[in-house]
């Protein structure tokens, strides 16, 4: 499995490991995320600290996921980005304007307390 799912406090944490390729890992990730949303788990953290490569469709899966979660008035926040993946998100300007990132899972989980999901849609 390229990712595992845990629940911490009030958030559901997807940990992505190794290479995250949209075409390979996307369908399972989507399915798993949809399940979480259906169960009302809309505070989502994606832990990228052990991910070392992500292709464009992998990023696409995260964007699609973010859209789904926000539609349900939740949010998806990124945690522990490695330098390589962070660069990818910086060049594409997805960091800041679309995704928020946090130092680690703990900080991302805590952010839902101090800064709850606004439910702002990407599509407005």
């Amino acid at each position: 499995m390229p990712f595992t799912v845990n629940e911490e406090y009030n958030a559901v944490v997807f940990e992505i490991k190794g290479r995250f390729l949209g075409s390979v890992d996307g369908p399972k990730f989507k399915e798993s995320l949809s399940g979480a949303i259906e169960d009302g788990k809309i505070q989502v953290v994606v832990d990228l600290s052990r991910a070392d490569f992500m292709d464009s469709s992998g990023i696409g899966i995260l964007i699609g996921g973010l859209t789904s979660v926000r539609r349900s008035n939740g949010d998806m926040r990124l945690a522990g980005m490695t330098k390589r993946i962070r660069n990818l998100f910086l060049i594409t300007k997805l960091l800041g304007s679309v995704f928020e990132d946090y130092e680690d899972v703990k900080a991302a989980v805590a952010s839902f307390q101090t800064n709850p999901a606004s439910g702002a849609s990407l599509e407005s």
Partner: protein
Amino acid sequence: MNSQVEDLRRENARLQRAVGELSMLNDLARDLGASLDPDKIMNKIVRRAIKAVDASQGVVTLVSEAEHSSLKTLIRTSSASGERRSFHLNESVLGWMLINRKPLLLNSPRGDDRFKGVRWDESVQTLLAAPLMTKSRLIGVLAVYNKRQGATFTDDDQRLLSIIAAQSAQIVENTRLYEEEQTLSRMREELQLANEIQTGLQLKDYPDLPGYDIHGISEPARSVGGDYIDFFPIPGNRYMLCVGDVSGKGLPASLLMANVQATLRSQAVWSDSAAECLSRANAQLCDSVRRGNFVTLFYGVLDHAGHSIEFANAGHNRPIIVKADATTFELELGGLVLGVKRDFPYSQDSVALDIGDALCVYSDGISEAMNLHRQQFGEERLLRVIVEHRRASAEDLSKAILQSVQDFVGQAQQHDDITLLIVKRVA
């Protein structure tokens, strides 16, 4: 004497039954040989089986061996026929068959010790099932239910159903293999189509602009990727120049790329500035692009009389400018990738081109090209080649970059397209 007549009569009846069975099997073989449609084949098997053993319903259930752990996912296809509503093979019977792999005759299913606690569909009175085996692998189960007139299935019925199952198994497996082959061939066709679309969109030649030397290359990776390169005249004696990368691969990426090209070429004509063009294109793509797809794009407008390039960048690698004196700098202004957020405010910048300056716009297939040690080619190596070959023609410079990338990656297989556009002011 009487007993001899009786024996003869019995022998006669047996022979007649055998002739009937043989002709039925012969019909079945002819029927099955004539079709490659799995649904039709399974329907025929079920109909023949029902008729052969005088049952009222039947079902073929195919299983895939890889998924033995979960019975629920075992049923790939099932084809049923008969009076009343069709039903699925009971999971317990399927499970028993997976373990025992031999025919099963149940004339009183509810009283059978092997199926204690199983809740049978109330319509099931009697059941007869036989495994579909090819090369000692269970590929499915042929089951019939409820012998007509309230009768019970006999050993002869069981023998006959087993023969039908044995005869059908290989044919069912063949249709499955044929179906797989068809799917593969469809995928190959799709890939071919994607290739053609992508090739059709590629620029074949570059305009001969006085004072400029322009060259682009786009080398698709093994699978069709989604790099995009364009150079196109727009009003005001200017040219739009783009290098982009659409997310994903294969036919969807090719179609998205065609969409991007059409969007940009039309918006470029109507936009007064690079930022406006990207904002318009972004809004349009946000409406048409499937969720999760996006496009990185460097968009520039070359004013070849004024020797400047106005540009905006939607999440693409920063292009590099190399000057005659070997200094280099990147076009730093960035912006969000296209197709994700409708109201992103793109901004623009412009850069003057002196004689000897070359603009290199490239895709991440170059900077992220990986060798067998999983090291990336990287921007530093790219800068070194560009500086070293800055005096070469645009074509030679792009060839030198490509060669350098190929030398670096060696035998490692590339999974990303390599795209490069060089705009050099020579006079």
